[in-house]
């Protein structure tokens, strides 16, 4: 009997929601009126990391915090702020991790220089092997 009651309780239990019930911010899912400003906002949002769902940009994410970050980007762009100033504001708070367009610095120079170095090494290998076959 007790087991049956427990099962019944499980069956009628409402799942607990772990998302806010408040409506999303006005500019989270609404584009800006001015197409040029919206394009600016969109380019910036595609290069900002969602800090909750870390593999996604805030343009791709449906997390409520990503929505709030989009609203922040759009309202600041609409207020006339430049995309780079908004990026700098976020980097100041979250570190370089928040941007998908990392600045050139002490920690990131291998990231930027590795492709160039690999191309040079490839060209050297190609040159030496072509020389060998000609002979």
């Amino acid at each position, binding site marked *: 009997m007790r087991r049956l009651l427990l099962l019944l309780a499980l069956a009628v239990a409402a799942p607990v929601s772990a998302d806010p019930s408040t409506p999303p911010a006005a500019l989270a899912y609404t584009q800006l009126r001015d197409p040029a400003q919206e394009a600016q906002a969109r380019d910036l949002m595609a290069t900002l990391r969602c800090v909750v769902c870390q593999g996604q940009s805030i343009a791709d994410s449906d997390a409520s915090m990503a929505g709030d970050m989009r609203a922040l980007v759009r309202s600041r762009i609409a207020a006339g702020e430049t995309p780079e100033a908004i990026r700098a504001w976020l980097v100041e708070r*979250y570190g370089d991790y928040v941007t998908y367009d990392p600045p050139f610095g002490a920690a990131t120079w291998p990231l930027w220089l590795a492709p160039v170095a690999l191309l040079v090494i490839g060209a050297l290998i190609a040159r030496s092997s072509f020389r060998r076959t000609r002979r």
Partner: protein
Amino acid sequence: MRRWLIWTPLVLFALLFAIVAGGLFKPADRVVRSALVGKPLPDFTLPPIAPGKPGLSSAAFRQGQPRLLNIFASWCIPCAAESPQLVRLKAMGVPIDAIAIRDTAPALVDFLRRNGDPYDRIGDDRQSAVQLALGSSGVPESFVIDGRGRIVLQHVGDIRADDVATIAAAIRDAK
């Protein structure tokens, strides 16, 4: 020359294997921490949300006494899990203020009734604006702020029983 050159692919493979295995056994730390630790608390003013409880502004953290700033929400389950520890900290004499993220008054009142209310003030952050200004990446999070408005410690995630001593010590040291 040629004799040892033949081993280079194996050496490269072993190196790659070591890197991948290292990542597997010791995954990278994915916690996003605020870059504002050690820096002044950004200015903000938030309206009240719970009846009979004042709203919160950054001025509250510049009155000479270290305080704990808890970022929470009634819809956040780990927040309910950490509330006994906040009640404990309050009982130890730690003053606690809070920012409620994307919350409604009825849900918040219900949350405080069920989990206890250790808060002196609660600010209403409708669109996570202050949360973003703080460099906080989710709920719950807590910041220890010294009496001059400087952030001295950030605790990401729920406060567990064994975190209480660290936070109480940070409050004590901030005096």
